[in-house]
């Protein structure tokens, strides 16, 4: 049986969900407002922030996407961590 995720997991996950949500909102907005320079700039800034937070999250809790699954040469990371509906 896999051990439950550590307590910090929730906070890190919520940070990631927070930045991803801002990006989703801006993305839909830009779909109908493709030349709003302020929104474009904001989207770029949050994309960079997302990159950093996702990197830290993956280092601690495993890959968010299958392409990050082979960090170790000994086991396939992608299937190690629990799935979103399980945690």
């Amino acid at each position: 049986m896999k051990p439950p995720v550590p307590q910090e997991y929730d906070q890190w996950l919520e940070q990631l969900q927070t930045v991803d949500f801002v990006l989703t909102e801006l993305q839909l907005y830009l779909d109908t407002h493709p030349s709003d320079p302020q929104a474009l700039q904001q989207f770029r800034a949050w994309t960079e922030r997302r990159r950093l937070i996702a990197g830290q999250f993956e280092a601690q809790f495993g890959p968010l996407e299958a392409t990050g699954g082979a960090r170790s040469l000994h086991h396939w990371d992608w299937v190690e961590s629990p799935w979103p509906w399980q945690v």
Partner: protein
Amino acid sequence: MFTQQKRYYPYVSPYDPCAPIRQKFYQTPPELYLGFQPPGLPQYSAREALARGTLWPALYSPYGKSSREAQR
């Protein structure tokens, strides 16, 4: 005053078998009014945006138990 909930007073017959609800409510959320969203609207902080489900206060539509209680 802008509200996201409107009320009406349905006809009550003396022959209605269920106890009458004299005021009924329906929702009129902000997308019915905003039109094409103007650029530069005020935004929530990122954390608050996630909690509310939108980045923009102008599009926030509260709904909860109180909306049901208001019908009693």
